């Protein structure tokens, strides 16, 4: 893997050069919230942002996405207009290692058994530039899943701030294309940086409150019924916050919008397994009738089903759900209860 560096004071000029060629989506501050947004000025980019309120999955899997346009031709037929192009090339900058891993967790869902054109095109046309963490938040626990705060898996290019330089790791072929298209990375003299990167990794990892998931999957493999599910489900409001702020959650609904005059569109939008009607079927039967079934399903998915299906963790330890759950349902405490056989 090629490695290079950019001097710290050359970073923003390089980002500006990128922005001049591609839409650049980066972490900004809006109304006190940290969010990934398309920037018009690179000076809006905030580098030490902790964690964004919403995960970057929206770039590949938008909250609401038009699938095709529908036009009534006459009473017997409709015309469907599928978009020729879903997106232009774009650059996503500043993604921390947990979120990078989450993109990899989403990939098999949308690109293997049921290739999804919309996701695939966005994925193919997005250059992902990762950014190592300089600190851990009290809610971070990426290390529980073998992810380190400086891991580059999931990025095309990965940056780590070390002293007066940014180490640049060119992880993928797409990353090579980007450094060729936007020069600025110096490819030499990175040997000392690698040792410094190790030190940074250890320093930030040490700030993380340890969470031990050994044995969790095994307990879940062996037990579908556990008293802890009712205990935690009681606290749950049944809203969609955890699923929507989660970088790996990917359930969606498909609906039609009818303009009323014979024109409309089919769209897909995020859906949440925590909603009471999520599994309600035509006819009224609901196989997950109470919060207990729904809460159990969600955590089984994060801690077991995603691993079963794709051999990838369903949770990346970003901690957003812990921060935002209105009733403080904490997956780390659930993990601890599972291990304790509660």
């Amino acid at each position, binding site marked *: 893997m090629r490695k290079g560096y950019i001097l710290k004071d050359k970073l923003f000029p390089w980002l500006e050069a990128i922005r001049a060629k591609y839409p650049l989506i980066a972490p900004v501050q809006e*109304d*006190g*919230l940290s969010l990934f947004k398309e920037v018009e000025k690179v000076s809006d980019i905030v580098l030490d942002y902790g964690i964004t*309120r*919403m995960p970057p999955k929206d770039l590949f899997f938008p*909250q*609401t996405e038009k699938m095709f346009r529908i036009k009534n031709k006459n009473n017997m037929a409709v015309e469907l207009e599928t978009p020729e192009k879903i997106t232009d090339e774009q650059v996503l900058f500043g993604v921390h290692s947990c979120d990078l891993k989450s993109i990899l967790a989403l990939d098999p869902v949308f690109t293997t058994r049921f290739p999804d054109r919309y996701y695939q095109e966005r994925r193919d046309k997005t250059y992902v530039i990762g950014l190592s963490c300089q600190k851990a938040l*009290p*809610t971070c626990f990426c290390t529980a899943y073998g992810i380190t705060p400086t891991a580059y898996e999931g990025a095309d290019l990965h940056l780590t701030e070390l002293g007066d330089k940014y180490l640049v790791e060119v992880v993928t072929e797409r990353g090579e294309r980007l450094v060729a298209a936007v020069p600025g990375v110096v490819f030499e003299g990175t040997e000392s940086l690698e040792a410094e990167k190790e030190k940074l990794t250890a320093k930030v990892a040490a700030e993380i409150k340890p969470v031990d998931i050994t044995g969790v999957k095994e307990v879940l493999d062996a037990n579908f019924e556990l008293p802890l599910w009712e*205990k935690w489900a*009681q*606290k749950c*409001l*049944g*809203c*969609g*916050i955890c699923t*929507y*702020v989660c970088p790996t959650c990917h359930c969606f*609904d498909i*609906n039609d*919008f009818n303009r009323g005059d014979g024109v409309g569109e089919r*769209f897909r*939008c*995020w*859906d*949440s397994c925590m*909603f*009471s*009607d999520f599994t309600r079927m035509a006819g009224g039967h609901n196989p997950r009738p109470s*919060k207990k079934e729904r809460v159990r399903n969600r955590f089984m998915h994060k801690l077991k089903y995603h691993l079963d299906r794709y051999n990838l963790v369903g949770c990346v330890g970003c901690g957003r759900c*812990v921060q*935002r759950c*209105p*009733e*403080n*349902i*904490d997956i*780390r*405490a659930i993990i601890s209860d599972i291990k304790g056989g509660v």
Partner: protein
Amino acid sequence: MLKEKIKSTVSSLLENKQVDFVIGYGAGSDAGTVRPTFVKAVEEVQELIWSPFAVNNLAKYVMDHLYENIKIGVIVKGCDSRSVVRLVQDKVFPRENFYVIGVPCKGILDKNKVARDFDLSGEFVDFVEQGDNVVVKTTKGDITIPREKYLMDKCYRCETPTPVVYDVLLGEEIAPFRRDNYEDVKNLESLSVEEKSKYWDKQFEKCIRCYACRNVCSACNCRDCVFDMAEPNWVGKAANLSENTAFHLIRAWHVAGRCVDCGECSRVCPMGIPVNTLNRKLIKDMKELFSVETPGKNPEQGAVLGSFRTDDPEEFM
């Protein structure tokens, strides 16, 4: 000590089988966070705490037990007690099935405000009031917080520091000492049409349609919510500005006259939308038009929009 009073009250309720279980607060992920805790056996009572950060409104959880005809104990502050009134008046849960454990409250600390100036990342151990300060003991050290500077915004305008209904009150009644002048609403009312439009467009653009505001609200107690309807699809599921605006307006109208202004909707919003301001605008207008009190404050006050007086204003005639 409030924590001890809570534990002994709850223990005795459980021992005497006066309730099937009690909903209170337990320790959460950090010193500034509490977690709703459901206690059905005396051995579990030791999980209950009191915390200066005990913000969650616990009343609505009774809706998970609608047809069971059981008795549920709930710990409530002044704002939460109005939710109890709401649920009883809407005939959602009978008064006699509630055992209301009232806690007089001068204000709850806002963990986001506190976290900007203090380290709340340790675990909560205990707290003590020291004059104007609250000293919070955490596993990472003690924090001395000047109470009045760090309250939830809603607490500065609280007119019911003492719960308006209770079966037992764990402390001395606190006479109301703050006034609600609806400054937050008035500030927005004073903007121009353009400015108002821009402000709310910016807020509703952020909405991710998680429905946390609806789910936490005790006035949102319909068996079948209009927003869950697919046939007819009153408000589409797409999260765009128009649909989001429709959701928020319709929800505000559906709870109009019944919202008790507990403030939970704004607290739970993950995107920081001031949801409660819409409800408060309607409450302010209703107070001006119909000379009523905040719904839920007076259990004797009937449904504001469900009653008619011959001297009601008739601007629409």
